[in-house]
């Protein structure tokens, strides 16, 4: 029954499927998706997009494979390691989010003796998970400051739990993003000791709209329609902060007040192979990939 209503072979610009389930996280990264919905870009393409929360990219992968979601917000780091582990054959439809200064910082408690990255030696630092953009970012920051990964202990802690662990002394430092950064600075006077998105990681690509090769070849037109709609929204998100601030409180628990002060990243509207290749190369450099990976085959060109 469901297939009949979801899939129409003809009509609607010849889309193979009109309803798309898209895995998201309730964070600023996916603002463009909500802008596209709000402004009717999907509707114009004949698409209905149903966002579904996936707690992490790792969990989203089996859901993509089983068809439980059609597209997901995929952080490049996880997508590339999963690609190497042959978990699936991924395809990136569009870029989603890109780092900017102070989007990912390392913070410590107000009264912490830690003053700079060098003081982190021998300390515990919380990251959202192992083997992630977080560890890569901290790795690169450490190296830039003459330390190495071995000099610290990574402690996995979900972002919402990290401030508590920092405050109670279970960790010495935390790698955080918004809205937690603003939150901990305001609530407990936490101190930033480093912006991790600098140097090798400056303007680092964070995540893209991701699907798998079988899904793409099954629904090429649908995916193209999605690409067209989302890119329009990415452009708006990138150029009009107010648009992002407006949709943020609708799908997250970030209050309008907080939305107006938090630091936002960039919302790229082109899928640039050179930039994404940077992720693969840096991952290889830090040992997160075993072999050099060419990201080109993974990127789906923008339809005309």
């Amino acid at each position, binding site marked *: 029954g469901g297939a009949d209503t979801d899939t129409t072979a003809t009509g609607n610009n010849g889309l193979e499927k009109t309803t798309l389930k898209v895995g998201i996280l309730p964070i600023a990264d996916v603002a463009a998706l909500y802008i596209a919905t709000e402004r009717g870009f999907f509707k114009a393409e004949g698409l209905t997009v149903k966002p579904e929360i996936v*707690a992490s990219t790792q969990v989203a*992968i089996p*859901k993509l494979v089983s068809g439980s979601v059609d597209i997901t917000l995929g952080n490049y780091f996880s997508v590339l390691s999963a690609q190497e582990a042959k978990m699936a054959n991924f395809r990136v439809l569009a870029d989603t989010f890109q780092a900017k200064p102070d989007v990912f910082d390392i913070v410590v408690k107000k009264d912490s003796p830690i003053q700079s990255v060098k003081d982190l030696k021998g300390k515990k630092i919380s990251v959202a998970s192992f083997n992630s953009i977080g560890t890569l970012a901290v790795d690169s920051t450490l190296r830039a400051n003459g330390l190495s990964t071995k000099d610290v202990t990574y402690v996995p802690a979900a972002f919402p739990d990290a401030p508590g662990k920092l405050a109670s002394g279970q960790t010495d430092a935390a790698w955080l993003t918004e809205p937690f950064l603003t939150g901990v600075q305001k609530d407990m006077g936490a101190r930033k000791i480093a912006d991790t998105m600098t140097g090798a990681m400056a303007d680092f690509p964070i995540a893209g709209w991701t699907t798998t090769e079988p899904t793409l070849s099954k629904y090429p037109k649908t995916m193209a329609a999605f690409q067209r709609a989302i890119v329009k929204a990415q452009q708006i998100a990138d150029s009009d902060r107010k648009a992002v601030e407006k949709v943020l409180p609708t799908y997250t628990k970030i209050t309008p007040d907080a939305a107006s002060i938090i630091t936002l990243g960039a919302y790229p509207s082109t899928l640039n192979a050179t930039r994404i290749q940077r992720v693969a190369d840096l991952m290889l450099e830090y040992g997160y990939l075993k072999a050099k990976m060419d990201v080109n085959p993974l990127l789906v060109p923008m339809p005309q």
Partner: protein
Amino acid sequence: MILSRVARGAAGVAVLLVAAEVAGRTGLLDTQIMPLASTVLAGAAGLAADSEFLHDVSATVEVWAEGLLLATLLAVPAGVLLGSLPRAETALRPVIEFLRPIPSVALIPLVALIAAADGTMKVTVIVYAACWPVLVNTMYGLHDVDPVAKDTMRVFGFGRLAVLLRVTLPSAAPFVLTGVRLAASVALVVAISAELLAGGEGGIGVYIVRAGSGYRIDLMLAATVWAGLIGLVVNALLVRAERGLFRWHAARAGVTQ
């Protein structure tokens, strides 16, 4: 009688809440990390008017109910079978004991791979976790049946099945129901944990993810309070069913109600 029970329960809850509030206000508990009890309760009360959250609650309750029902339907017959066939029990014990300590949340990615629908995935992990209390309690309940009662049935020429249905099961039923009460909360815990870990379109756990990503610890805990309340209500219903169905059980033990 019932009133005094409610009053006592309320008193118990009140003492704990006041203690938590005082601990928060005197700085014994760091309110930076753990919001005040009153803040959490106010948040929980506010959620009652949040239609989006109520939708989440109904989504959770739906997978919970389905999971618990399936777990019970699966585990009771399985427990009866294993409890009455010692050989089968011995043979399957390694497999069962191997499976029991596997965290159902660790299975989420694997189940997600097979089950295309999000609901199916959750129900599967709920069933996986919730069937054990029912199974184990059923097996133990079965061993607790008075042999004279079973002999009585056999003597009148009833077959094994009739003995099972008319003596063994009724006699074990109260303890099986205790297993179901255990499973009910396990199912709720797993439903929410699955939502926390795997997300989904809606659910209390999904709400908590959303609140967490917005750095709203107070709302996370407020939603958690709802989980507790649901557990409380479900248990009250099951206890009431137990009182109605198993009056004989209480009477034999001299427990007056």
